[in-house]
C-alpha cells in the first residue's frame, strides 16, 4: 500500500518519517549497489575515474566493485563488446544474483559506436541483455556515469515489489537468465535475442524503390 505523499510531507516537517516497507526496501537497495568489476575498453578508464577520489562514486553507495558476479548486482558494460567477448558478458550477466541491473556505458556498448559497421563488434549489448540505463558519450565523462547511476537509483526507488506492476525480479515466473549466443561460422548465433530486442521499423511506401 502506497503512502500518501501529502501525509509523508506533513509528517516529515514534524520530524516523523512515514514510509512503507516497499519504499524502505527500495531506498535501501538503491543506495547499496554493488557493481561488477570489469571493463572492456576506454570507457572503463572513465568508470575507474568515477570511483576514485575526485568523482568518488562512493557518495552514492556504489563504491565497492566486486570481482565476482555472484557478489554483484549492477553490471556496467563499459566499452566495446566484441562478438568474441559477447558470450562471456552474457554469461556474467546470467551468473549475477537477482535483482540485477545493467548500465550500457558509451556509444560502443549502446550500438557498436564507431565500429558498428565492422565485422567483429557487437552492435549494442542490448541485443542480448536487458539494459536499464544507457549513457551516451565516447566515452561519457565520470559525471555522466554518476548521473546514470542516480537515474538507476531513481528507477529502483520506483520499483513495485508486489501487485500486478511489480518489477521483473519480483516475479518468480519470469526467468532472470538470458540465452547465451554461440559462435557461428560468420556471426554470433543468434545475432540478437528477439525476445528482448526488437528495434522499431519504419514502414516504407511501396512506390519508394
Amino acid at each position, binding site marked *: 500500500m502506497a503512502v500518501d505523499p501529502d501525509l509523508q510531507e506533513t509528517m516529515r516537517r514534524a520530524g516523523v518519517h512515514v514510509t512503507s516497507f516497499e519504499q524502505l526496501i527500495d531506498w535501501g537497495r538503491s543506495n547499496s549497489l554493488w557493481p561488477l568489476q570489469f571493463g572492456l575498453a576506454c570507457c572503463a578508464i572513465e568508470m575507474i575515474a568515477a570511483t576514485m577520489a575526485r568523482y568518488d562514486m562512493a557518495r552514492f553507495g556504489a563504491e565497492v566493485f566486486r570481482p565476482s558476479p555472484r557478489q554483484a548486482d549492477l553490471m556496467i558494460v563499459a566499452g566495446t563488446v566484441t*562478438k568474441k567477448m559477447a558470450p562471456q558478458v552474457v554469461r556474467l550477466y546470467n551468473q549475477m544474483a537477482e535483482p540485477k541491473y545493467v548500465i550500457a556505458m558509451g556509444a560502443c556498448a549502446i550500438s557498436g559506436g564507431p565500429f558498428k559497421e565492422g565485422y567483429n563488434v557487437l552492435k549494442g549489448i542490448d541485443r542480448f541483455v536487458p539494459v536499464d540505463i544507457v549513457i551516451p558519450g565516447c566515452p561519457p565523462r565520470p559525471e555522466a556515469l554518476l548521473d546514470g547511476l542516480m537515474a538507476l537509483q*531513481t528507477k529502483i526507488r520506483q520499483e513495485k515489489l508486489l501487485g500486478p506492476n511489480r518489477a521483473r525480479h519480483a516475479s518468480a515466473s519470469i526467468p532472470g537468465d538470458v540465452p547465451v549466443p554461440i559462435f557461428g*561460422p560468420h*556471426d554470433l548465433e543468434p*545475432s540478437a535475442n528477439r525476445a528482448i530486442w526488437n528495434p*522499431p*521499423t519504419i*514502414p*516504407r511506401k511501396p512506390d519508394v524503390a
Partner: protein
Amino acid sequence: MNPEPAVILEQIRAAVPAARPVLLRNPGPAGQDSILLDTASAQDVFRFLKTAPGLEFDLLSNLTGTDWPEPATAHSVGVPPEIPPPPAQGFLEVVCHLYSTLRREGPLVVRMRTADRAEGAHLPTLTPVYRSAEFQEREVFDLFGVVFEGHPDLRRILMWDEFHDFPMRRDYVAPDDYEYEPTPHEAVWERAKEHYAVPDGTSETGAPAPPQSLGLADEAACEAACSPLREERDRLSPNPPASDREVTP
C-alpha cells in the same frame, strides 16, 4: 638512419646463392624501397639478415599482410584505381619491418608473396628466426588466410575458432545484420531498403516485420512505471513547469 636495400640486396645474393631477391622501388614521396624474397630460401635470408656482421637486423618490429586481389575482384570491390593492378592471378603479401637495435638502423622492408589467394596461400614461417613473429603470423593467418608452414601454433588469434572467413581480404562480405537507424543514408540506406517493411506487414525479403512498438509488452504498464519518474524529475527540476509560471501578475 635508413638502410640501403640495394646494397643489402647484393649482400644477400653473395651470402645465400639460392635466394632470388628482387628490389621493389617505391616511387612515392617516402621513397622506401623494399626487398621481395622468394619463399624457398626466405628463412635462410632472414637468418642471414639477423646474424650477419654489419647487418644485425635483430628486431622484427612488424609483420603484416596485404591483399592484392585479381583485377576482376579488385574492380568489383572498388579498389581505388591509383593502386596498380597485380598480375592476373592475385596474391597475398606479407610485409616485414626489420630493425637493428645494435646499429640503430631501420626499418628494412622485406616482402614475401604467396602463389595465389586460395590453395597456394602458403609462406614459410619466421617464428624460428624471430620469436616476435609468432603472434603476428597468427594474426595474418586469422585475417588474411596466409598459412605459415612450420609455425608451431597456427590458430586464429582475434576471431573465434569457429569463424569461417578472412575478414581483411578485400572481397570479404560481412553478414547482413541490418539494424534500425532513424536516418539511414548512403550505403546504409541501400542496405536498409532491403529490410524496410512495406505496409502489408512483411519486409521485401519475405521475413515477418518486427513489431512497430518498442517491444514493451504492455505500454500502459510502461506509462504507469514512467509517470512517477517524470513527477520526480519535475519535482527535482529547478525550473517549475510552464503552467506554474503564469501565476505571477
